[in-house]
């Protein structure tokens, strides 16, 4: 009766293709006109994008507020970094590492796979908890995961170096790699959202009792979405480590969590397109603010220096969006819903 | 008492009622009948101020436009809404106290007791949380709560919904009693026969327009009405 993909997923592929084109246009624009430092901004934006798309998978479809993504990103980043860094470098950077962690090295691909596997396993273990909890408890336990993982990073300085730098990671990724990963992430998230499982999770988000009466195994739906989303975070973490060459526990904590959550909210948690737009807009916005902060000369007028505005703006974006568009810019809509304005509108008025 | 003219009601961009006139004289019971989606609830929402509307609504000659939901209630409009919007986390007793929240006279407790004895099943469950009541029990609670404020005009949206026949009988008897006590009532009902029985005047609403109205005698037992409503829907 069904092919490989259901009709919604096919629509999703069309939507993903549009978003992919958008991403490629941005990269193209950079290649043609960009300055070197912008490559880094773009790379960071794309890493964030993978995280935010991963957030959409569990947090967006299930309508839970979770804050542990930075932890999973960190786990993968450290795992990949420890695997891929040459033993000679690790002798210097991780002299006291136990279990021979500083005595081996791996090909980047194997290192990435190991990192994905480790994160996936930890995702599954925590998922056993997460999938059995209720709304606010999910938030709390996600915070607990973040704090516990962070404490371990800090405490086991012999393995993770804590707030000091773990350096010497071969920088094997470039903009091309992360672009490919972003597009992959978009497609994967769209396919998930439109899959039966994604639909079920969205139903659970609306009415858990109703969903169970329709046969939805809530625990299973949450579990799969949770583990899937941790794999997105892992991918982002690996991309982060493979590009920067130096990591520490510091970036994988609350500040990063708030930033990425704000991105998801701005776009609208319910749609993948929202995740993409939200990330791009906030990244762009932050760059503009960073530039404005320094008091540039604009059309002959020297603007005052206003350092430190970006944090303020981030908060204002969150509050403003919540007040005026509680479902974010996109609400329930995906890009193809806007472009095609289909007869069977899937827009939900509220 | 209540005069409505040229009323249009909107839900976002959707216009649910397309300009109707309606009047509820003091001390009378007016029934508003019509199929699903006709706009009955929307009309009541416009009166209570919970839906956006144009046209005029006058209560005893005063235009209600610009009045808040609370002020309309304080002006004497009380509603037992559709869908039993009881406060699920409060007990039965507390729900009733909410109904009398604006009253300052001393008789609230006594009145609550009176209602609890009128619906004995509620009396037995006075400290049960209202969310766990059966559907019918919730419906009774909704009606009692609406009446505890001693309103000047009572809006009832499908009060018989989900009630057992015996209780329906009681509810309509209650409406009859209230009418005799001089209460003004606007009644929305699916149970056309019973509604016509208690009402003085009947409006029939379909697709957001009044299709017919007249004294209840003109409608007989409501069976004539059925034909009219058939096929109107959709």
């Amino acid at each position, binding site marked *: 009766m069904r092919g490989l993909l259901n009709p919604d997923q096919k629509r999703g592929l069309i939507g993903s293709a549009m978003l992919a084109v958008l991403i490629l246009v941005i990269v193209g624009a950079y290649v043609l006109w960009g300055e070197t430092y912008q490559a880094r901004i773009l790379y960071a934006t794309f890493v964030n994008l993978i995280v935010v798309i991963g957030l959409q998978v569990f947090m967006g479809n299930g309508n839970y507020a979770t804050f542990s993504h930075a932890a999973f990103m960190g786990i993968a980043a450290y795992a990949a970094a420890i695997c891929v860094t040459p033993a000679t470098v690790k002798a210097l950077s991780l002299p006291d590492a136990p279990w021979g962690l500083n005595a081996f090295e791996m090909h980047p691909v194997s290192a990435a796979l190991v990192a994905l596997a480790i994160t996936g396993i930890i995702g599954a273990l925590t998922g056993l908890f997460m999938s059995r909890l209720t709304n606010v408890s999910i938030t709390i336990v996600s915070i607990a995961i973040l704090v516990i993982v962070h404490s371990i990073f800090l405490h086991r*300085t012999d393995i993770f170096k804590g707030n000091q730098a773990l350096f010497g990671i071969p920088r094997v990724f470039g903009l091309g790699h992360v672009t490919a990963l972003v597009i992959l992430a978009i497609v994967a998230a769209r396919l998930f959202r439109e899959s039966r499982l994604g639909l079920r999770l969205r139903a659970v988000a609306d009415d858990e009792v109703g969903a169970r009466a329709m046969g939805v195994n809530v625990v299973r739906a949450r579990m799969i979405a949770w583990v899937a989303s941790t794999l997105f975070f892992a991918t982002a973490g690996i991309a982060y480590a493979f590009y920067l060459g130096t990591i520490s526990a510091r970036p994988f904590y609350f500040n990063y969590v708030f930033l990425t959550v704000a991105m998801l909210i701005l776009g609208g948690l319910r749609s993948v397109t929202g995740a993409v737009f939200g990330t791009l807009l906030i990244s762009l916005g932050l760059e503009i603010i960073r530039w404005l902060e320094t008091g540039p000369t604009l059309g002959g007028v020297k603007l005052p220096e206003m350092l430190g505005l970006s944090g303020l703006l981030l908060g204002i974006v969150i509050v403003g969006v919540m007040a005026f568009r509680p479902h974010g810019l996109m609400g329930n809509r995906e890009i193809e819903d806007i472009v095609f304005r289909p007869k069977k509108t899937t827009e939900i008025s509220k | 008492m209540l005069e409505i003219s040229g009323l249009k009601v909107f839900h976002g961009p959707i216009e649910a009622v397309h300009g109707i006139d309606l009047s509820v004289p003091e001390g009378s019971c007016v029934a508003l009948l019509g199929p699903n989606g006709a706009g009955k609830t929307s009309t009541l929402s416009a009166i209570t101020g919970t839906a956006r509307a144009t046209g005029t609504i006058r209560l005893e000659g005063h235009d209600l436009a610009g009045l808040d939901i609370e002020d309309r209630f304080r002006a004497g409009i009380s509603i037992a809404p559709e869908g039993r919007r009881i406060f699920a986390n409060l007990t039965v007793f507390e729900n009733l106290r909410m109904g009398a929240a604006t009253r300052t006279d001393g008789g609230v407790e006594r009145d609550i007791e009176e209602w609890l004895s009128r619906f004995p099943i509620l009396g037995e469950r006075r400290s049960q949380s209202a969310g766990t009541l059966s559907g019918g029990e919730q419906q009774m609670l909704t009606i009692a709560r609406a009446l505890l404020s001693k309103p000047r005009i009572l809006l009832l949206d499908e009060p018989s919904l989900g009630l057992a026949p015996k209780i329906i009988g009681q509810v309509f008897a209650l409406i009859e009693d209230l009418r005799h006590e001089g209460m003004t009532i606007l009644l929305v009902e699916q149970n056309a026969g019973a509604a016509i029985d208690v009402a003085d005047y009947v409006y029939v609403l379909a697709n957001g327009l009044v299709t017919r109205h007249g004294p209840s005698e003109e409608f007989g037992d409501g069976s004539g009405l059925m034909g009219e409503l058939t096929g109107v829907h959709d």
Partner: protein
Amino acid sequence: QDDTVKIGFAVPLTGDFAPYNEVDGARCMAEMINREGGIGGRQIELMVQDTGADTQAAISAVERFLGDNPVAIGTIPFSDTMIPVAQIAGAQGVSIVQAQSTQVEMHTGVVDNFLTNVAPDPYTATAAANYALSQGVKNVVIFTSDEGGSWSARTPEWFAEVIEAGGGTLQATLNYTGGTTDWSPQIAELRALDPAPDAIYISWGVPDIAVLIRQVRAAGLDAWVVGSDGFDDPSLDALAGEDVSLLDRVFFGTLAPSQGGSKIAEFQDACAAIGMPVNGLFPALGADTIKIVAYGVEAAGSTDPVAVRDAIRAADAIPVMSVESISFKDTSSYALREIPVIGFENGERKLLSLEVPGNVPSWP
């Protein structure tokens, strides 16, 4: 060909590390030099960008600065930022010059283009320990936390090492987290010790420290409270406003003399006079960064960053704001300076000792 000397600061003006940025002092010193005619006619131009605590933001700001050919760059004083920033800047020969980076891992040879105006943590710990020993301290307790990297985790251990080498005992190691406003569990541990400790050591900052001092005294403990550069903040002195005796048995090893009448205090007054107030030790040390770079440019006679760095490293004595002079000749990445130990008398800062300690424990 350049008629300006550009220095970039991709630093935390907001976020958790904002108190440690050096921009105010750097600005004031640059202004002073520029008013005097610049460095051999070259004006100093600072490029400042707020990065919060975000490494990525720092890196991209630095890459942008690099487009303007700076001589040196300052950034977030954590190795996870300083290393990649140094690597990127290194491609263009530009040095990272940090006003305040005391943590040890930058001096292990990870990067070559790194300089900091100050001495690493083991030196401050040793100076403090030496003074403690001179006061007859025998039994010590240290407070450690992993949150501040090696500064808060290892510095207390170096302190203890020196104390033990001097014949004292480490009675206990207690742990804490940042933001502690109620130290009573730790204090209960202290009170349970027999004999009562002579000194407790903690590398941490205000406001938590002020709370600790107050609560330790309230609990009737009169052990010395000893610390490091994190103590060196005006809000510690504010404790005297409540009760001068609170600061009586408090001292700390720090980066440069900052007591009343010191050069730093004079500098702060001078800056306030020209309307550019500089509060606290870390902001003031930005002035040293400017002085060092200025010296390098002058000595190299160019703004070529590599030439400047070589000139700085070759110098026997570079005049700076906070002390007479410093030198990178023997260390190549940090300035081996005299470490001041500062205490209080009637609530006023007092320089207790000033030495280049010779008995520093070995550090990586």
